[in-house]
């Protein structure tokens, strides 16, 4: 599978879709990746199964506050350095880079790093979407250690975290990132090819690309949402997809606590049926309830798109009167096991409703 520079716009759109409202603005990621590709060339995109069991891979991502990332994104050399620190720590070469989070900005950072370092990028990730915390990753659920977590700021100052649990690593990394300027490059979840095969959410980079393409192509048809839903229902990587609501934003409340934005968005149906849907979001959408009844709940994906352009609508751009279509997408099976739900299911976000698969 070969990526082209022109694919990045579709990939970014698909990544924003899979960001389920969060994940950071893929635009910045696309600019970073484009700049690196122009200088170093396009990295190779490889399948999980093409890796040897004893190959050595790690993730690369950006971590920080979205408003800070908008001012100060990665530099490039920080990606080189974070990988060389990881290699020095393990005393062996990295063979490939795998995205930790396909949703949003972090779909592009591995492509930037892969281009700069001449390393292949694996068509997979650890979330199949976007999640706000380091432990909410399929690798962690399958027992892959997230440490060492190597963090780097733009001055190439580094912090390496070693600790017992991914949750504790998250807490320490969050504090360190603030001191480091709230926008840092991070490499974590270093593992073998075999571990990746057992724990990856597969095919997600190509899924994001194809979702972006399907949205662009759908605009030229009479039923753009229908064609996107049909496409997603044929995807081998995600489960069922359905449009769960069409309406406009009639209420929006949000607050920022502990670095995470918490919000409620209420949509009302356009057909004057008085049906309404409330979507609760942290950094990403968590639960969509129609007239109080759960329609979609995390880890299934709640994807809001503009009703005409089908452009994904991130939470920071939601506004009154905006017309949206809400799509539910069943998360890949690997995220829906009891062990996975304990880490990234509704209760991990303080919701009281149990997980129920999108039907």
């Amino acid at each position: 599978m070969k990526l082209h520079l022109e694919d990045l716009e579709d990939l970014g759109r698909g990544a924003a879709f899979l960001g389920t409202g969060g994940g950071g603005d893929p635009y910045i990621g696309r600019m970073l990746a484009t700049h690196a590709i122009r200088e170093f060339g396009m990295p190779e995109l490889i399948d999980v199964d093409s890796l040897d069991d004893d190959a050595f891979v790690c993730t690369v991502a950006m971590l920080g506050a979205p408003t800070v990332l908008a001012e100060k994104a990665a530099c490039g050399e920080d990606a080189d350095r974070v990988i060389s620190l990881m290699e020095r720590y393990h005393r062996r070469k990295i063979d490939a880079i795998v995205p930790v989070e396909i949703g949003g900005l972090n779909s592009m950072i591995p492509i930037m790093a892969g281009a700069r370092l001449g390393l292949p990028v694996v068509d997979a990730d650890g979330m199949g979407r976007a999640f706000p915390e380091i432990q909410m990753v399929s690798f962690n659920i399958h027992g892959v250690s997230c440490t060492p977590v190597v963090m780097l700021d733009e001055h190439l100052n580094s912090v390496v975290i070693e600790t017992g649990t991914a949750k504790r690593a998250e807490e320490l990394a969050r504090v360190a990132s603030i001191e480091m300027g709230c926008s840092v490059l991070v490499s974590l979840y270093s593992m073998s090819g075999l571990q990746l095969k057992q724990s990856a959410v597969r095919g997600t980079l190509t899924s994001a690309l194809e979702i972006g393409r399907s949205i662009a192509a759908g605009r030229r048809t009479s039923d753009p949402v229908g064609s996107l839903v049909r496409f997603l229902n044929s995807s081998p990587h995600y489960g069922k997809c359905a449009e769960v609501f069409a309406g406009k934003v009639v209420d929006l409340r949000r607050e920022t606590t502990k670095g995470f934005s918490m919000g409620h968005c209420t949509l009302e149906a356009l057909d004057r049926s008085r049906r309404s849907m409330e979507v609760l979001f942290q950094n990403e959408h968590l639960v969509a309830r129609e007239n109080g009844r759960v329609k979609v709940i995390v880890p299934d994906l709640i994807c809001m798109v503009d009703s005409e352009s089908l452009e994904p609508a991130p939470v920071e751009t939601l506004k009154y009167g905006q017309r949206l279509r809400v799509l539910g997408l069943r998360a890949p099976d690997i995220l829906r096991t009891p062990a996975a739900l304990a880490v990234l299911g509704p209760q991990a976000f303080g919701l009281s409703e149990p997980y129920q698969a999108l039907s």
Partner: protein
Amino acid sequence: MRIGIDVGGTNTDAVLMDGNELLAGCKFPTTPNVSDGIRAAVEAVLGTSGIDAARIRCVMIGTTHFTNAFVEGKHLVDVGVIRIALPAARGIPPLMDWPEHLLARIGTHTRMVRGGYQFDGRLNAPLDEQAVADAAHDFRNKGIRSVAITSLFSPVKSDMEQRAAEIVAGILDGPSITVSNTLGRVGLLERENAAVMNASLAELSTRVVSSFRSALLDMNIHAPFYISQNDGTLMSAAAVEKHPVLTFSSGPTNSMRGAAYLSGLKNALVADIGGTTTDIGMLTNGFPRESSLTANIGGVRTNFRMPDVLALGLGGGSLVKCAGDTVDVGPTSVGYQLTQRALIFGGETLTASDIAVAAGYAHFGATDRVSHLSRALINSAVDRIHEIIADGIDRMKVSADAVPLVLVGGGSVLVNRPIPGVSEIVIPKNADVANAIGASIAHVSGESDHIVSYDTTSRNEAIEAAKREAILNAVRAGADAGSIDVLEIEELPVAYLRGGSVRLRVKVAGSLAAAGPA
């Protein structure tokens, strides 16, 4: 006595106002040389009213000239771009995502140098003054005279932009310098783009301002003139020469402010229906609701404050097309050629105006030229026009409650039916010159912007002091002290600095003293 002028892409409107009273208003086609259209319009209002030019106390001008020039890539100059952020932000160089046709105009003269701050005001790196000087020498050798300077987190701390501007000013001969913190918010690429856009208009802004000035002097008007900006307040001629981008969406703002004034409504929807487009916005307390999104202007991302306006491709000149049983209206339009190409004006093109005349609810042009149109066609087209507007209205409303709708602009004759979700439709008298009226009632603003510590000064005292300073600045800019209101108080906490530090910004506005009571 004052004159309000709106220079649009199609028409130049002028109004003569005495206090609250409209003495005369008129509409002329915009001319390629903007000042001819202004002269024609101003002479017409003075002529009809019989008022002597010497009695004019001030002139307010709204113009989309700079927006159009930028979008079309006309009259732009080469820009030297300095970004002060290294070692940060080097992964995305300046101008990386600009369209080729604009880069062909402004060049790619970019320099990244060390400096800038972190999100909380801590130092990123000390300013590399030598590198700034080197960049300025390079620009001088290339004959560049307009420079845009952007430093990391300058909305939090702007002193490095100021220092770099001093260095550049000392090396280039009479340069025009734009510093980003005066234009945009946090978001380095978007703020830098706004600064570069502004710098690219440096020559045009000087030229246009001086042509406005000479057009007025030619008519023996010696009163000061002001230009309206995006937020509905006025800038002095000198300020526009420095910051032309701040006029970028003054057109919709003026029409909405004019609609508020003419209708007496402070909370309402406004639809400005022109020849090609309909702009729909929401008035809250007499001012347009602001958009929170990044705006794309001519293919360039920016983030300066703009009114939240929905533009629909419907206007008096919109083409009406039939395909089988379906009739569609717009988005293509005959635009300024309406008076030649529409059927009612003897042309061969079926437009939305022809439909309104044929349906019997608009009365202009030659009615007999549309008598051959079938009832079915007219009805479907009228349905479609109302559908498009109703749909736009519904998008801009914040709640299901019915809201009044004010219609302004020459195309307001297209509407004659109730619209769902609208409590009443108001078409005020003089709705066709609402833009110019909006410009004529624009206020003068003043700002205060400092980092203060609530540990050494109490919050109340600090805010009061900032208000006093902002009011003083507004009065210096020409505001009537008695009419000043506080528009916004913004407090941005600055952590890690000595205790309780915040960036405190206060903005006030009042009516122009020279304009007399409004």
